[in-house]
């Protein structure tokens, strides 16, 4: 049997001890390594939104009992008060029976003023820096719905401009939502009245829904949202406009704190030209039911994807 060549990696073999000097040297490396490891975590000093134990262990929205929900709402009110110095009223509104919301948008009327964008921001406590806006108004040249020709950043002196029309896009509250299908933790789902909601305390921030949405409707909180105190809307809903945390998704929820109380969403109310129409399509007397009955051509964006959006764009004259 030929002798084995010494293993240069292991000259002393499996059970040899180290010389004392090498042991000390090794310990020095180990100790300095541990020091570096501890120091590497020093940015955590600046962590300012550690979740409390209740928040960490909070149950899924659909599993909360009414008493637990009350506690959660109160906790949210306390947190907002602590952060902004103002106490909000946070409600958990349930969908009404016999209601299905539908949105109709008259593209003849929209002038591209972006009031809807900013009314939404104010109503729904969206972050100003970094900027989160649920609604994106596209300026398209007359004659085509090719979204590649869209300009998102138009800022002329006066709108509307000749030769263009304007199309605001927000969450289409699809009947067959791809975002709901892909969420790994069921943090987003569709409610009975048609609104696709997000449980902000359940979302893990994987952003799969953002990749799945064909309308680019979902927004992620890359940083801690900053809302000016004087702009805070204190009328809040759990699934709606209560302030979100860093690391979770958000999107248009049809102003759930308003619509489930019977009011119009902020974008509908502020539109100066009445281009936006909203209501309960199951009510034959609502304006949306009238529009769907009488207007002849509707555009459902990317209809071929099978998402069945609840947003109907149409031209009038």
């Amino acid at each position, binding site marked *: *049997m030929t002798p*084995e*060549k010494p*293993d*240069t*990696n*292991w*000259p002393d*073999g*499996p*059970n*040899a001890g*180290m010389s004392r000097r090498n042991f000390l040297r*090794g310990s020095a490396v180990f100790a300095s390594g541990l020091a570096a*490891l501890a*120091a*590497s*975590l020093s*940015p*955590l000093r600046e*962590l*300012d939104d550690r*979740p409390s134990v209740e928040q*960490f262990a909070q149950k*899924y929205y659909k599993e909360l009992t009414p008493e637990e929900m009350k506690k959660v709402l109160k906790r949210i009110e306390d947190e907002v008060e602590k952060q902004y110095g103002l106490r909000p009223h946070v409600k958990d509104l349930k969908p009404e029976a016999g209601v299905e919301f539908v949105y109709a948008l008259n593209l003849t009327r929209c002038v591209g003023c972006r009031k809807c964008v900013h009314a939404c921001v104010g109503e729904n406590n969206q972050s100003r820096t970094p900027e989160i806006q649920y609604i994106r108004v*596209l300026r398209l040249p007359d004659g085509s719905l*090719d*979204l*590649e020709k*869209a300009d998102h950043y138009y800022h002329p002196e006066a709108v509307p401009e000749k030769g263009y029309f304007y199309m605001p896009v927000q969450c289409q509250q699809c009947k067959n939502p*791809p975002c709901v*299908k*892909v*969420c*790994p*933790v*069921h943090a987003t789902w569709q409610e009975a009245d048609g609104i696709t909601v997000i449980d902000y305390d*359940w*979302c*893990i*921030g*994987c*952003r*799969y829904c*953002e*990749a*799945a*949405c*064909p*309308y*680019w409707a979902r927004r*992620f*909180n*890359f940083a*801690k949202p900053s809302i000016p105190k004087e702009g805070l809307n204190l009328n809040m809903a759990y699934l709606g406009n209560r302030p979100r945390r860093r*690391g*979770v998704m958000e999107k248009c929820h049809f102003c759930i704190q308003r619509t489930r109380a019977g009011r119009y969403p902020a974008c509908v109310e502020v539109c100066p030209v009445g281009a936006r129409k909203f209501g309960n399509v199951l009510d034959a007397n609502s304006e949306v039911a009238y529009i769907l009955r009488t207007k002849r051509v509707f555009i459902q964006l*990317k209809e071929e994807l*099978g*998402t069945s959006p609840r947003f109907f764009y149409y031209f009038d004259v």
Partner: protein
Amino acid sequence: MIGGIRNYLVFLGRCGRIAFVGDWRYYSWMGFLSVFCLLGLNAYARQFAHGLVVTGMSDEVSWGVYIANFTFLVGVAAAAVMMVIPVYVYNNEDLHDLVIFGELLAVAAILMCLAFVTVDLGRPDRFWHLIPGLGQFNFPASMLSWDVLVLNGYLLLNLHICGYLLYSRYHGRKPAKWFYIPFVFVAIVWAVSIHTVTAFLYVGLGGRPFWNSAIVGPRFLASAFTAGPALIILALQIIRRVTNYRITDRALLTLRSIVQVSMLINVFLLANEVFKEFYSGNLHVASSKYLYVGLHGRHALVPWIWTAIQFNLLAMVLLVLPVSRSLRWLNLTCVLCIIGIWIEKGMGLVIPGFIPTPLGDILEYRPSLNETLVCFGIWAFGLLCYTVFLRMAVPILQGRLCKANEGEAGWRAPVASGEAPFNS
């Protein structure tokens, strides 16, 4: 029972000890990797404190290098098990022991994948929401839930196979076939499934026409089986050089033939994709245009993808020619494959899916320094893990670290049965 546990703990203890013993090259390599691990950990701590705003991602491009690396590494993990097929299906004995090196690479790659996904999460503290039973697991609708299951299952599978084989060798026992052969065959199928599930993550999104194509799945597998064995070819040569473990050239050439066939298929599928995108002239080609030629004046990825294509084509030509039978050329070819496929599958797949956005907006992506350091840190961590695994596995396989020399002084260990001593 107690004796069994005690034996196992002693085994683990010795394995752990040996990870700290080595020559100056070992210490330099591990030190170098540790430095990058620390830099990565520091960068991640910064990201944890400030949020994902420290990366280059935005609502327009909401997945970046983290998911790009994840995708590439799932392929490596899947392919690392490819060596199992020649050995167990075709009874190729040259590769027999090398299967363990492949599976250890798979374990390291899966650990890197899990790390990349974790650092990409906006709220990693809520990971428990993913645990079936405890949280809300959207299985089977969400492909991400499938991914969680198959990746973790694959990790356990490989840990079991390697662990059992190494522990048996440590004891000088022949491993019981029923305790590992079925798992090996399951691993073959499971390897294909992990990568197919990862592909389906992308394919299932109807709103992203760049990804919503049937060819993504086959391309994933073809590119994985090119890059994975290429990595193993390089790793085996390094093992051969720094230890005196015997690895035949024939083994390397068997792996070369896997890389050869896979690269040919990969290039063929690329040609299919390019034809489909550009020949008919329909409107959904914006993302492909952005990738290959630029769109509306934005062309950040164009030099990258053309580099990847050139590397892949050159590698394919070299693989087909007999010149790549020589190790020096083979190594060059492997490097070309790995880089080419990393670009093509990572940046060349994930980023163009987001550009233009579904509403036609174009916002390019560039990873930030912090993001890049986290990536380096995770790669360093993965290489660290793999090095440690090999540091334990090679002496065990050589019979130098075994039960028989527990507590014995001196290094000349009795050779384990069936294992002839080799000179390097």
